């Protein structure tokens, strides 16, 4: 067992028998958020060494993606980060659109932005719920779920599913909003900000919460970049890196929002950043909704977007086709999708989600690479957990906001 850790073996002899205390945390543990397994070496309750072991939820999305066509691959992306699947859909679609050179209609861009920000709210609410529950505040959990439920109901109206949306398709989105959905979203954006105060009353200034989060798992900015941390975790350390601002996609270039940053890079700052992002996401949804009437009635899919069922082969039309029985229609095969490569990344609620796709001209990706934030964040746990207590480790797992479906793919 100990081989998982690179431990400096302590001297073990008969007189002075000193064996480190190993604790195997997970894969079944209430607060490892799924099937994360942490192998800990303890001294009392202090963590001396920590080795995360992942792969219990490995489904081979990258390999499967090579066997499915571009639109079908988006279905796989739902299952990666199942808390915010709309964001995953968008990342995949953006990479494929870049590869195919599609221009997404404006309305589709707005709709995508709205569902992405809804996903951000959903994700942050779930994060707050579980993070607070891990630290022991059980009521926040239910309040967050109360509000998340509302959003899931709206999702159900938008695309017919609550978690695995498959709402985005290559070249646009699958269907338009109805007026009912827009009204409901307006109502939500009205009522949501006051509800944030509910959570803040319970934990924001609570002395126990402050004690549990301030000064825990401090990551200086330089180290955070080196560790590859992204999203709210990086911004908590004071680096204002946000893909929405740095490489704008969809309609993010046109909306006005602030990227909140922290100062100390501890758990409390990351909590503050996420709470602020909730408000900003609410603002973005509001702005996008205001812009929707301008594009009323426009199509939501690009003109030259591929069909859902991308044909496996396309033949160059001959100048004079002779449709005669028994004669096979001959022609030179042309690539269905332009061969080449494309890289697109988005600011998913958890961090930077990057998709790198290589095409060989067929209807399927030749290589599909997904860089997921949770994967990188889990790799930072040993750094962050060193010399902390077990109780802090729980807070660290919570503050990193990991989903194992996202990291194992």
């Amino acid at each position, binding site marked *: 067992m100990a081989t998982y850790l690179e431990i400096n073996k302590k001297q073990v002899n008969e007189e002075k028998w000193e064996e480190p*205390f*190993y*604790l*195997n945390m997970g894969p079944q*543990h*209430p*607060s490892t958020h799924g099937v994360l397994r942490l192998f800990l070496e303890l001294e009392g*309750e202090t963590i001396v060494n920590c080795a995360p072991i992942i792969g219990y939820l490995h489904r081979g999305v990258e390999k499967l993606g090579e066997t499915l066509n571009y639109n079908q691959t988006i279905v796989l992306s739902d299952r990666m980060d199942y808390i915010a699947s709309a964001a995953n859909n968008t990342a995949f679609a953006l990479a494929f659109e870049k590869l195919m050179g599609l221009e997404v209609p404006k309305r589709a861009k707005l709709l995508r932005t709205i569902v992405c920000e809804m996903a951000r709210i959903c994700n942050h609410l779930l994060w707050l719920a579980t993070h*607070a*529950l*891990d*630290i*022991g*505040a*059980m*009521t926040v*959990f*239910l*309040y967050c779920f*109360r509000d998340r439920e509302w959003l899931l109901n709206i999702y159900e109206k938008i695309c017919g599913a609550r978690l695995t949306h498959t709402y985005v398709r290559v070249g646009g989105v699958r269907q338009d909003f109805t007026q009912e959905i827009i009204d409901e979203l307006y109502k939500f954006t009205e009522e949501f900000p006051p509800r944030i105060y509910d959570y803040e009353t*319970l*934990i924001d200034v*609570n002395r*126990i*919460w402050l*004690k*549990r989060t301030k000064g825990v798992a401090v990551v200086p900015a330089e180290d955070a970049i080196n560790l590859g941390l992204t999203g709210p975790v990086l911004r908590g350390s004071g680096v204002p890196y946000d893909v929405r601002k740095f490489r704008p996609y969809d309609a993010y270039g046109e909306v006005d929002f602030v990227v909140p940053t922290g100062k100390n890079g501890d758990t409390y700052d990351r909590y503050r950043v996420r709470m602020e992002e909730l408000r900003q996401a609410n603002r973005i949804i509001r702005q996008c909704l205001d812009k929707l009437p301008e594009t009323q009635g426009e199509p939501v899919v690009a003109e030259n977007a591929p069909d859902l069922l991308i044909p496996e082969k396309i033949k160059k039309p001959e100048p004079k086709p002779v449709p005669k029985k028994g004669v096979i229609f001959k022609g030179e095969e042309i690539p269905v999708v332009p061969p080449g490569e494309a890289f697109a990344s988005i600011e998913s609620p958890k961090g930077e989600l990057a998709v790198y796709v290589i095409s060989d001209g067929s209807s399927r990706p030749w290589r599909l690479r997904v860089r997921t934030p949770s994967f990188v964040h889990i790799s930072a746990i040993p750094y962050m957990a060193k010399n902390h*207590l*077990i*109780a*802090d480790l*729980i807070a660290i797992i919570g503050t990193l906001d990991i989903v194992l479906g996202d990291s194992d793919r």
Partner: protein
Amino acid sequence: MLEKLIYFLIAAITLLVIALLHVAYLTYAERKVIARMQQRLGPNRVGPRGLLQPIADMLKLLTKEDLVPYGVDKPIFYIAPFISLVFAGTGVALIPLWEKFVISNINVGLLFILALSSLSAYGVILSGWASNSRYAFLGGLRASAQVISYEIAMSLALLSVVLMAGSLNLMDIVKAQISSPYKVYLIPQIIAFYVFIISAIAECNRIPFDLPEAETELVAGYFVEYSAIRFAIFYLAEYFGMVVMSALAVTCFLGGWIGPFEVPYIPFFWFLIKLYFLLFVYIWVRATLPRYRYDQLMGLGWKVLIPLGIINLFLTAFLKLIF
């Protein structure tokens, strides 16, 4: 002699039944109250409004398979839950519910209750040790540290009460309160009450001090390996502990059975009202607050509560000397 014995038996059984019912419905009340605070419905399937839920739970736990994991220290593993329950539950016998109703009116009542509640921690520690599980072991360690530090603060708080009443007998303490100008010791001893309530919550391993079981850190702490009836007994012990601690607080600080006016035919009325309120506070706190960290809990105990208790004790002694 025989008559006395029969009377004694009847009283004891009545008390036990009442206490058990209270404990059973305390679990129900906790679930329901927390549910309403979280805007949920709470248990609502068994019986009208889920009123039979505790009984269903009990039956379920009784009929479940009693698992004994491989490699446990069997005698200790078997006996640990009973240690917890017996020592937590015996305290009920000493509480004067009414002027004329107390099962054992002994002269060192307060001391006896303190001793019992310290001993009940042995159940926790032993189960943590005997389970042969690392989570349970850590839970047991935490429990022992916690009990040692909070026992002192609690004793100090109660000592000031003893100083004011001039007796260790719980009956006498209540009577002293009634005859004092304040009627209840809550007013002069507010600091002691504050210390006592916090250490009582810690003593019962409740949120925000539920470190030995901390379900999100140590899964379930010391009883992680227990199942079925033994698990139920641990549960029972925890709630018994809550009832005893609240009853003690009512006796020592809130004036026992006295109330603003007499309620006919129900002699325990005021006692029970105060008890229920304190139990509600337990539940209320659980629904609201996050959990302390182990070292912070120790810090709170040693750096805040014990000094406060000592200061209060000296202050009380000083004032008593003057007046």
